[in-house]
């Protein structure tokens, strides 16, 4: 059973009740790694952020104030003392209250705090609301988090597969925040200030900006009552308008069409690998939810029909020289942009380019054949059948659509639309999704020490 309720504070709650031994709660804000500037709703000033800001904040938001002698959280005059001992943290508090899995992630278009629990569901929800909605950031502790994040960045840098995607983003995006990695760089995180972070919280973590999704063994009435009560306790029950969404004004065209003349070189790859991708830009400020959904759906179908395993177009590309073992493709999308991509090993990047261009040209000229669109539809719906058995997969999909259209229940509408969209409707959107000027090729090659 699905329910949606908006509280007085503006916080949106979505519940999907099912017969599950556990419940999954997630609280997310549409503040992700792509957002590098925003307009402060109070002053109206434009605040510029360092790359990695949203992610840095995700790390430190778990910090909670110590308990006083009475065993209750201390009352504090400032939420940014120079230093403080005996700090608590949200993960420990939740796990100590029998939450089974606790975590958070920063995506390009949202930051999500979540837990899975069987027992103490509502008191665990209160704990999560506590640390997500009330930042407590001792200055020394805030700064020390740099070390942990620097290691997380270094771990990502040590994986060639993801680094090539970063290279592609820097080639394809002109001014969009997605040019920078979500976690930032070692240099950018050193420049993130506590003041900026607190301003971000005031803007992006106000209840009217946030969404709570609870699935499994949950009751909307109980969840809503718990949240209302907690918000009153935190002094956040009144409505305060959310920040307006600001377009990233990403233009058409790419910065670099290819890097074949100067490839990205790594010692830990065994052969050249090319990532080809078309960026497509969405404007949530001017497009309706339906228009956004149509583009996400058409892009997903088109990408699978063109390049994924089982498609006849991919089969032909393999016969023409693509590497059968590694060549694959898909769609990757967030709130205001997406990429239809294809990737594979190749000894001949020029042939790779020629084949990709030829497949795209055919699609734009003649449309993707109906049988290929039908295949992609089958693939997607088969995957959705598999997901439907898992509360935890369902929760992931709800968060994803919650970020894409700001309505988690659009996930269900999207599944229906995947079933009903026609080949003509998909093909009509291809000029937007496969615009030749938005295509960039990133090559990674073995080499170096």
């Amino acid at each position, binding site marked *: 059973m699905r329910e949606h309720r908006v509280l007085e504070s503006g916080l949106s709650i979505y519940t999907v009740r099912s*017969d599950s*031994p*556990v419940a999954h709660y997630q609280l997310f804000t549409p503040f992700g790694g792509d957002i590098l500037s925003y307009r402060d709703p109070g002053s109206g000033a434009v605040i510029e952020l360092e790359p990695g800001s949203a992610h840095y904040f995700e790390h430190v938001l778990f910090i909670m104030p110590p308990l006083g002698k009475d065993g209750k959280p201390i009352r504090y005059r400032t939420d940014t003392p120079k230093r403080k001992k005996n700090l608590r943290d949200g993960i420990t508090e939740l796990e100590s209250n029998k939450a089974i*899995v606790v975590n958070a992630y920063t995506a390009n278009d949202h930051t999500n705090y979540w837990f899975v629990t069987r027992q103490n569901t509502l008191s665990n929800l209160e704990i999560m609301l506590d640390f997500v909605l009330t930042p407590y950031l001792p200055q020394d502790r805030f700064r020390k988090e740099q070390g942990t994040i620097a*290691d997380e960045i270094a771990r990502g840098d040590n994986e060639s597969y993801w680094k090539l995607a970063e290279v592609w983003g820097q080639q394809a995006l002109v001014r969009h925040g997605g040019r920078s990695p979500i976690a930032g760089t070692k240099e950018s995180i050193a420049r993130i200030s506590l003041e900026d972070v607190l301003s971000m919280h005031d803007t992006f973590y106000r209840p009217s900006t946030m969404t709570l999704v609870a699935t499994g063994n949950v009751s909307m009435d109980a969840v809503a009552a718990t949240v209302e009560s907690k918000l009153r306790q935190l002094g956040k029950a009144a409505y305060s308008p959310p920040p307006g969404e600001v377009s990233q004004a990403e233009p058409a065209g790419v910065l670099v069409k290819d890097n074949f003349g100067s490839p990205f070189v790594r010692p830990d790859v065994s052969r050249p690998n090319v990532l080809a991708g078309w960026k497509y830009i969405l404007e949530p400020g001017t497009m309706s939810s339906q228009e956004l959904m149509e583009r996400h759906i058409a892009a997903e179908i088109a990408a699978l029909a063109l390049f994924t395993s089982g*498609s006849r177009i991919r*089969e032909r590309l393999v016969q023409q020289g693509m590497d059968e073992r590694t060549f694959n493709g898909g769609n990757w999308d967030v709130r205001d942009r997406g990429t239809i991509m294809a990737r594979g090993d190749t000894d001949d990047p020029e042939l790779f380019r020629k084949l990709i261009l030829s497949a795209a040209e055919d699609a734009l000229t003649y449309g993707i054949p109906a049988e290929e669109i039908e295949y992609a539809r089958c693939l997607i719906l*088969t995957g959705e059948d598999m997901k439907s*058995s898992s509360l935890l997969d369902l929760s992931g999909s709800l968060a994803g659509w919650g970020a894409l259209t700001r309505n988690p229940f659009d996930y269900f509408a999207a599944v229906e639309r995947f079933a009903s969209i026609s080949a003509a409707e998909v093909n009509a959107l291809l000029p937007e999704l496969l615009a030749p000027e938005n295509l960039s090729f990133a090559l990674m090659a073995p080499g170096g020490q």
Partner: protein
Amino acid sequence: MALPLEEEALRLLGATEFSREDSNGIAVYANRAGPTLQEARLCFVTNYPSAEEAVREEFLADFYLAAARKGTASHPTMDALTRAFVSSRLNPPKLYTQRWREKVAFVVELSLPAGDAGARSLGQALPLVKEILSAPLVRTPGQGEEVLELTRQDSLKTIEDRTNDHGNHARFLFNRRYFPQMEPLDVDAQKALIRGASLADLVAATEGLLARAFPLLLFSGDASPEDIAAPFASLAAGYSPAGNGTALSQLDVLTMPPPGEPVFETGPSEQMQFISAYPLKEVPAADRDRFALSIVNAVLGGGWTSRLMQVVREKHHLVYGIYSGFDDKRNLLMVRTEHDPRLYGRILGLVQGLVGEVASGDFTDEEFIRQQEQMLESLLVSHGHELASCDQPSFRIDRAYNRFVIGGTDLPLAERYTILAGLSPEDGRDAARRFLDPALNQVFTYAKGVMPDA
């Protein structure tokens, strides 16, 4: 001071159990699950005389499978095969091999729709699986040679690619050195085996594996187990598997050679892959000891609230993550992380200090009980490779596979729950002191550059 048993948890865990009822010549382990997706896993399990023979046969069978996936007469490409399944709204089955020392499993894994539709889907999928296994293009005169050579090149590339996954490669090198039964072939030997294999070798290895195997089916769902078992039994019968149930026996406990000086392997990893192994002083014979050690391990490095995470990450901010694991089949406790190579000395010092504390039983009742409670709840949800709860067939099948096929975990979940709940912090301290010796320690690292100055 044991924890109270919670009836609801025991009921939920009890529902994950499988009952065995042999059908049509194969052992069928079945579990009744709710009306969701159903899962079935047909396993051909074989024990070879040695790990080296097992790995050779497994590599060749894997090579055969890779070639078979490239097409059949009626579906002549890899894409055509995928399409044949997906167009019928079926996920392509997973066909793979897995090896644990001398034991090899050849697995056909299928996800099926709920109810009777599951049995109907099987009717569509299994004939195609049979075609892939028995009549792939690679066995067709004229076309087979080209498919074989393409697959050979693919397999060699896959071996190379594995060496670029730094964390996995570090574990591979560690096992090669200390547990050669786990990795009997180095990368060059793996490549040589692939380079030298003929089609006849592949067919002989695959059919030999299947013919000497003990077949069993794991099934969790709401269809009748007999309806699901019959077509699988028919598939299995085609290979006349002659193995018996001894193939399912528990794995022996291995012994690590005496620890020595730290070993620094070099490779292209910018991050230092850090492994610190602590072999136990003796093999714990009693379940209570093994479970007490698993909680002690959780205190040390089982998750966020463990000492390793709280000290190395949260206090000193040196790493993003650091964990320890208790492996009762290798009889050791192993600390793993990756880090900036310049931090090696600091991290080693912290790890050794923390292991020393825990090994001497220097932890609080509160720490022990927190980990114990966390472990009890964690029995109901898996959150490693994927997140699944205990009502899902995939959760149940994974545990049954681990228990019945791998023979790694020998107790039902409800029994594990009962034993874990029955332990006290003093049991943990006693086990830590009896089995852990911080001086028995082997450090192994893998990174680019020169040996660090500890």
